[in-house]
């Protein structure tokens, strides 16, 4: 019975997804938009319900599954992302030729994979849930199957995704072969009891697993897919990639590095610090010449993976908490940006940045939402992105007290923030300072308006009253034995 309690959210979302599929197969509802709003509303209820769930100290399913504060924090984050993405999908549905109900259902199955990822405590479950997410994303990215950009995005994601899952399994095979276990807790015990450096075959396996996870979070050198896939995929899918898939990658990275491999990762932080620096520079420099907003956000998501890797590389309690806080506020910020982009592209049919000019006059709420989210991404106070970056830098500086090389990482991060101001403000300039060619007002539907307001309030609210989210993220990061 307790096992069922542990996976109730996953069951709930799967059943709801299957129901949507069945109802659409036997008694199709003609207005697909309503189905999407209903689905989003249901997920929002599930999100509220998840706050009534309590963390459990034991593991479930033979040590494979955890329901600790860390898992619950991520489950809430994924449900929030799913609700917003379903709302976007409902707004986007007129542009999908066929299979709208299946689109909703696939998004929900994808989210089930993410919910499982939040609780992973074993390499077998890690691989299965990771593939559940990745394979559904192949389908989702190429969903507009008559449009070449979407197919291109799907094919690229498919080839690189399958490559990274090959690396992951091969790495798992070597970790299993050298330690004889796939369970994170047992792995940590074995590594702690070992004296001397770990076997080179084990290091090989660990590097391969990190490669697979590096692909998920789009960190250098596995970032090449991100701009193309972000640009070509249907916009709700891009939003889900940016918010859900990225958070899932970081959830796995933190779990693997800080529980299973903690004894080893303490001596491997230099590698992650180098990757963080490279990712920061690549993402932020690459974004400068972009003129497509989805591609710009693709590069920006690489840059943000770099900021969060700074927190991972710090290997201290402050850093782990900062990463969780950053992911929380990043979800609201990015969802707000994508909601606004979907509303604008529905009216203009283009996602090039010039088509956003004069948005502030055409639709004050869309203009404000997009402007605020760009400013929050850039890290301008008092928006939530500023406090998120502040915490990450604090973690790196704390680490630098004992290892002065970390000052270099902090400096690279600061340079990246300055670079990023340029292109984020470029979007802001288009919104408020440039004149629109076609100045007809853009109509924003009521559910969309609601979603935008919630995200904007959250962005400003988290920026000013940081305490509740900081508290939640620190509680969640306490599951790791870091100092």
């Amino acid at each position, binding site marked *: 019975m307790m096992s069922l309690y542990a996976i109730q959210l996953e069951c709930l979302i799967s059943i709801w997804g299957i129901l949507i599929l069945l109802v659409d197969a036997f008694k199709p509802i003609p207005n697909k938009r309503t189905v999407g709003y209903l689905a989003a509303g249901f997920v929002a209820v599930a999100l509220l319900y998840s706050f009534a769930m309590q963390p459990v100290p034991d593991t479930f399913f033979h040590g494979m599954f955890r329901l600790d504060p860390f898992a619950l924090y991520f489950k809430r984050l994924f449900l929030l992302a799913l609700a917003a993405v379903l709302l976007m999908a409902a707004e986007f549905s007129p542009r999908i030729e066929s299979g709208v109900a299946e689109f909703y259902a696939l998004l929900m199955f994808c989210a089930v994979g993410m919910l499982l990822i939040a609780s992973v405590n074993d390499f077998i479950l890690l691989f299965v849930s990771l593939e559940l997410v990745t394979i559904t994303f192949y389908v989702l990215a190429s969903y507009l199957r008559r449009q070449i950009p979407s197919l291109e995005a799907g094919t690229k994601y498919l080839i690189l995704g399958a490559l990274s899952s090959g690396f992951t399994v091969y790495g798992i095979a070597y970790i299993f*072969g050298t330690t004889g276990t796939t369970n994170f807790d047992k792995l940590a015990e074995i590594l702690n009891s070992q004296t001397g450096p770990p076997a080179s075959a084990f290091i090989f396996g660990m590097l391969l697993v990190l490669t697979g996870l590096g692909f998920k979070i789009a960190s250098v050198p596995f970032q090449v897919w991100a701009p193309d896939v972000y640009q070509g995929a249907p916009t709700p899918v891009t939003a889900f990639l940016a918010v859900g898939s990225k958070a899932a990658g970081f959830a796995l990275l933190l779990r693997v590095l800080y529980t299973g491999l903690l004894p080893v990762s303490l001596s491997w932080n230099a590698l992650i610090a180098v990757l963080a620096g490279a990712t920061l520079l690549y993402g932020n420099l690459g974004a400068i010449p972009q003129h497509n907003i989805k591609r710009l956000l693709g590069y920006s998501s690489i840059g943000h993976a770099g900021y969060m890797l700074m927190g991972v590389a710090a290997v201290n309690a402050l850093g782990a908490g900062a990463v969780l806080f950053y992911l929380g506020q990043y979800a609201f910020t990015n969802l707000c940006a994508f909601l606004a982009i979907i509303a604008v592209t529905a009216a203009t049919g283009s996602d090039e940045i010039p088509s956003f000019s004069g948005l502030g006059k055409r639709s004050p709420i869309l203009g404000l939402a997009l402007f605020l989210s760009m400013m929050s991404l850039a890290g301008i106070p008092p928006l939530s992105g500023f406090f998120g970056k502040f915490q990450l830098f604090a973690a790196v500086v704390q680490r630098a007290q004992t290892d002065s090389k970390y000052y270099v990482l902090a400096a690279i991060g600061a340079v990246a923030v300055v670079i990023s101001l340029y292109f984020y403000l470029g979007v802001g300039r288009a919104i408020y300072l440039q004149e629109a060619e076609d100045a007809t007002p853009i109509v924003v539907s009521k559910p969309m308006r609601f979603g935008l307001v919630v995200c904007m309030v959250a962005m400003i609210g988290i920026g000013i009253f940081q305490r509740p989210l900081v508290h939640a993220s620190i509680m969640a990061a306490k599951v790791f034995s870091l100092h």
Partner: protein
Amino acid sequence: MTSAITLNDYLIVSGLLFALGIAGVIIRRNALVIYMALEMNLNAANLALIAFSKFNKLVEGQILVFFVIAIAAAEVAVGLAIIVALYRRKQTISVDQLTTMRL
């Protein structure tokens, strides 16, 4: 028993298979062949997992192999569908002619 097959022999074969898979992905330009090479990577991992399970007398590795086989089948179904859709639209599956989005 001097000629018994050891764990290392299995690992060498699996490593070769994995290297062949990676080489195929890098060198070949046909999406279908690339896809075949990708499946080879998964099978290299399966071979390593089974060998480790057998020689360490543990069962977890073999359980994971079952999952990998099932997932690989799902991946093939989705992957071939995407490649077919791409061919219908572009009349080619060469990855050289894939890129249209730039900058």
